[in-house]
């Protein structure tokens, strides 16, 4: 599979700060990529550049298009939900469906109505009458009815309760995703999406701190729960993070010898959030 997004030296500078600092990355088709970083790390800027919503320096090709100059054509293949509840409040549900059906060549009205049939949303409702969770349901129904090659989700479930969050990612996986499609998602609720991700991209201070598939992450990183008597030995192996839970020390290792680690204690695959915390150490200091 070839890369559908290719960035080389992608930079974006706001007055005093570098939001993106000469970033290189490739995203292949058929992946679900988690773009994860602390506030202000450049996630949103990177997504905006991909979607043609901002100027940038460097090279960026999305599905073969230059997002700066060919945004309209790009949007026939790309969908995005940028932030929660950005649907205009005056719009009626039926009007939203009619509009997207009219302007989008790859939109299926039947699919959209089928998704909406599973909700309490009716065509005569205005967006302002819907709850935040229902607005996201509507937006997701509109987006999933579009046969796009790339779907970009920027904090799509922020502020929703757990029922809406769970069903959001479930429908995305079961009714939408297939190997022809690619999804990029950013969120702070990492633990909720880690089981659906195929790839991980950490971004920090405008640079890529880690870009790997989940399989690679599993091979490279290991977490060991160490008894107090082995702590010194574990520290000698240069762990990238150390924390204590119920009197036991948990060490995170990058690329250490597994056989050696197994002698120290119980081995685990680290969770994305623990890996994230370890990678981002000192960000706000």
């Amino acid at each position, binding site marked *: 599979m070839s890369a559908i997004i290719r960035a080389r030296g992608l930079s974006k500078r706001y007055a005093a700060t570098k939001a993106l600092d000469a970033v290189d990355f490739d995203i292949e088709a058929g992946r679900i990529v988690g773009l994860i970083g602390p506030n202000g790390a450049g996630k949103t800027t990177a997504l*905006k550049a991909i*979607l043609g*919503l*901002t*100027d940038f320096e460097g090279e960026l090709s999305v599905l073969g298009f230059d997002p700066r100059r060919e*945004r*309209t*054509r*790009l*949007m*026939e293949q790309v*969908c*995005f*939900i*940028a*932030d929660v509840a*950005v*649907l*205009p*409040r*005056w*719009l*009626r549900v039926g*009007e939203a469906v*009619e*509009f*997207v059906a*009219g*302007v*989008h*060549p790859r939109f299926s009205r039947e699919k959209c109505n089928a998704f909406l049939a599973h909700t309490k949303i009716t065509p005569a409702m205005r967006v302002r009458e819907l709850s935040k969770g229902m607005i996201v349901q509507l*937006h997701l129904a509109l987006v999933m009815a579009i046969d796009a090659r790339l779907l970009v989700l920027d904090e799509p479930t922020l502020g929703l309760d757990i029922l809406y969050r769970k069903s959001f990612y479930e429908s995305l996986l079961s009714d939408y995703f297939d190997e022809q499609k690619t999804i990029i998602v950013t969120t702070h609720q990492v633990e909720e999406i880690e089981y659906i991700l195929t790839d991980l991209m950490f971004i920090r201070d405008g640079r890529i701190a880690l870009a790997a598939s989940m399989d690679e992450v599993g091979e490279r990183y290991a977490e060991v729960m160490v008894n107090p008597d082995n702590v010194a030995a574990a520290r000698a192996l240069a762990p990238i993070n150390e924390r204590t839970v119920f009197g036991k020390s948990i060490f995170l290792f990058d690329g250490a010898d597994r056989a050696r680690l197994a002698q120290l204690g119980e081995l685990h695959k680290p969770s994305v959030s623990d890996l994230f915390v370890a990678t981002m150490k000192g960000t706000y200091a």
Partner: protein
Amino acid sequence: MNHLPLLLKREYWEHRGGFLWTPVWITASILILTVLGMLAAEVFRSHVQVHAGFSLDELRANIGANDMAEAGRGLDVVQLMFGGVASIGLFFVTFFYLLGALYDDRRDRSVLFWKSLPVSDVATVVSKALTAVLVIPAFALVVSTAAYVVFLVIATVWAGVHGLNALPAVLAAHPLGIALRIVALLPVGALWALPAVGWLLFWSAFARSKPFLWAVLVPLIALVANAWLGLMGGPHLTSTAQLAAMLGRLLFSIVPGSWIAGGKHFFGGNWAHGDDVLGHLDLGRSYALFATPDLWVGAVAGLALLAAAVWYRGRRIESSV
């Protein structure tokens, strides 16, 4: 550009209240006042002081004297009055529609939804400009014409109560002719209004906050600065009145009919009472405006401003509020 009808429909969905209901309520209140006036006159058995662009007493006198041509002309004036009253509302609706057209969706961030669809910035801006110069006036025209027809029914019934047959007068009027003439004049008004359309849309796309202040204060400050420079003996444009007319077009050329007589009445401020309104709507006289540089210079300036609005629409997403 093939989505244009849908884009215009989208504007109507968002602004139903302004485009449709504003002229409906304005003309309906005129009709209600007319009927109330008639009733009051009947109760007090006095003369009818109802003057809907043309006094009803005069109408009755004309019909009584069998002067149907004069009565018909009077009714034509009433029709224009309905259009004129709707136009006052139309100016305010258009002005604030344009200021918000490329700003409101940035303020509530719904621009991120619109931008997620394959609609170009050019198509978006063009649809807003066309809405201002064609869709809003079309609504006002249809509504005011309908109101005028209701008025004709009311007036005919009222005349009948007084034993007069108003139908010959109605037949002597030119409702269709006047409506068609106004339709034929829409392009003149549209071209004439381009500077204001471009100016307001430009600030709407450019401003990070308060587009109204930018759009109104910039010409005002330019005017004051020019006068002050003149006072201090610095380089300035000599004719303050001319500059005012020029800058005035940036804000007020969307006033329906402000193009009449090349804008001299409106921007010169010497609209004479009892002026021959019907004569001004003569097609020949109005189309003569196409031969004046004033119209074309303004139109080119308007198009340049629209191009700038498209440019900022592509780059400025966030507002600061």
